[in-house]
């Protein structure tokens, strides 16, 4: 049975590490998003097509996939979005009254802080959704149109009274809102965890956080959180004072929550806090679930170079494998090569010119953060994947050699790196029976004949082939020199390759 590199189980890690691992992989998604303008209908359509196709690979039935299609995430209209924000703001305003009341209600204050944080994050995430990866540009008509569109969506006024506000002011307001969300995320548990992971490097941690903010799954979870708060606040039964006729509980109408009689609302606030708290906790769990979906994203994007697909044939896969193994081997010091391979998979411009650690360090912070994010979370696994995939391919090397195809590795290269290859292979098979079985199979199938014996066989085959037509000293000489008679050249030209 064929074994795919991705079949190899991922080692279990501590919960804290896992959270970091999941978050750290998000730069890749941002990179993918950046390929297509994420706000365009076209970009969303392609992403949806990919999503539906991917669900098929996850063995979902047609019916289940159609059900998923029926629930495709569609951004709300500006009006819907602002309506949602206004309703949450109303709850927040009421909470504030009690937070600042006499005596101050600390539970109300804490709940308000968390609620406001959620809304700020949601607004910020919407801005990042609509903002091009390069940022806002107020110098071109297209850029200005984008600024207006975002302002309209998140409810930033584009005029003061009848006077139009300057584009720069609107842009500043948008960026302030976006930064507010980032600040909230930075201060969150996830933000702190990332900062620790990156040894206090705020620039690197921020790059990862920004990618998280651009992640559609993360955005969805924020919306879910706020929507849950609103829907659960509506028709909430609260402990109210008995009315004249009995003890009917009062019903708190979440849609009018800001307009409710203060006394009634205050009576209900304990229940409301409870609902809010439950929702916020559920949202945290939801966020963790969404982040879990990105668990293998980093590994997947690098692995894609080594697997045959509709757009990547066997030759292209081999070429990628050869290039990546060569890079990983040539720049093995400090795993620089592996980092370059990851950068290559991410499509980093000019990555192939990196040959020293200094050159790598000179890359811009964001690019390095993206590469490091993948390397730190799945570097060891990606290294193993590379070698497992290579092993799978060299199993067919003899067949390809006889067909006269270029396998890109010479005997010399192979021998020079034998020790390193063997070390890495050992790493692959450690604790992994599937990989061990695969390598054994490959060894059996891919056993090479000694070079001398192979050359003798080629010479014999050539002589026999020529002998069948015309055994002349000229043709014999040509064959011996790797001439073109009866394809002898193709065979001989490959003699130097494994």
């Amino acid at each position, binding site marked *: 049975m064929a074994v795919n590199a991705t079949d190899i189980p991922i080692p279990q890690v501590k919960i804290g590490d896992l959270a970091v691992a999941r978050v750290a992989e998000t730069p890749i998604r941002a990179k993918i998003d950046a390929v297509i303008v994420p706000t365009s*209908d*076209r970009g*969303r*359509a*392609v992403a*949806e*097509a990919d999503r*539906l*196709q991917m669900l098929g690979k996850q063995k979902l039935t*047609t*019916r289940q*996939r*159609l*059900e998923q*299609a*029926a*629930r*495709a*995430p*569609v951004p709300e209209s500006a009006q819907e979005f602002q309506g949602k924000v206004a309703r949450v703001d109303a709850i927040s305003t009421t909470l504030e009254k009690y937070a600042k009341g006499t005596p101050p209600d600390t539970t109300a204050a804490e709940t308000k802080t968390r609620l406001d944080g959620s809304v700020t994050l949601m607004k910020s995430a919407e801005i990042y959704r609509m903002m091009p990866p390069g940022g806002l540009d107020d110098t071109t008509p297209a850029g200005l149109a984008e600024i207006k569109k975002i302002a309209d969506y998140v409810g930033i006024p584009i005029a003061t009274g009848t006077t139009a506000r300057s584009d720069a002011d609107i842009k500043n307001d948008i960026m302030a809102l976006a930064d507010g969300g980032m600040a909230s995320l930075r201060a969150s548990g996830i933000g702190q965890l990332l900062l620790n992971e990156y040894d206090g490097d705020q620039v690197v941690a921020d790059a990862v956080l920004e990618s998280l903010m651009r992640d559609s799954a993360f955005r969805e979870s924020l919306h879910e959180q706020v929507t849950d708060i609103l829907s659960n606040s509506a028709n909430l039964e609260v402990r109210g004072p008995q009315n004249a006729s009995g003890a009917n509980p009062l019903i708190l109408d979440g849609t009018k929550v800001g307009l409710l009689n203060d006394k009634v609302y205050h009576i209900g606030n304990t229940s409301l806090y409870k609902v809010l708290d439950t929702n916020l906790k559920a949202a945290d769990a939801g966020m963790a679930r969404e982040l879990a979906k990105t668990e293998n994203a980093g590994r997947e994007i690098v692995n894609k170079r080594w697997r045959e697909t509709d757009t990547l044939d066997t030759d292209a896969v081999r070429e990628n494998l050869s290039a990546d193994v060569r890079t990983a081997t040539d720049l093995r010091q400090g795993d620089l090569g592996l980092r370059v391979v990851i950068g290559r998979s991410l499509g980093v411009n000019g990555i192939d010119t990196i040959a020293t650690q200094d050159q790598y360090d000179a890359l811009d912070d964001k690019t390095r953060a993206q590469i490091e994010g993948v390397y730190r979370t799945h570097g060891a696994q990606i290294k193993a994947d590379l070698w497992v995939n290579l092993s799978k391919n060299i199993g067919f090397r003899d067949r390809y050699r006889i067909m006269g195809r270029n396998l890109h590795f010479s005997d010399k290269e192979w021998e020079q790196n034998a020790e390193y290859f063997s070390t890495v292979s050992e790493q692959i098979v450690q604790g992994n029976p599937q990989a061990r079985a695969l390598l054994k199979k490959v060894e059996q199938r891919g056993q090479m004949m000694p070079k001398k014996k192979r050359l003798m066989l080629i010479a014999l085959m050539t002589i026999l082939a020529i002998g069948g037509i015309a055994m002349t000293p000229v043709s014999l000489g040509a064959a011996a020199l790797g001439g073109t008679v009866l394809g002898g050249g193709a065979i001989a030209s490959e003699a130097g390759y494994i």
Partner: protein
Amino acid sequence: MNTSFEEKKDAVQEKILGCMIKALRDGTLKVEESRASAQFVLSKIDSVGTSQELLALLQELSTRWKVYESVLLEEKGKQIQSEDTDQIKQVQQKLQKFL
């Protein structure tokens, strides 16, 4: 309802989904439209019990969203072919009786 018709319905749904993915990729269908068309299919498909009803559903689907026309045409073609086969069989049976 017989199993073969259920299988036929499954196959049609598969074609609709394939059409949807292709159209999304080609830029001829928006996400909002794919979502609405999937909701439309799911709301109707369970109550479909005959080939005629299936064709009617596909007719309505392709009227609302042109991208699914190919599924309708294919199913129509199959139905005509099947009717032709039935008619030929009937003629053959008549001929055999006559002979």
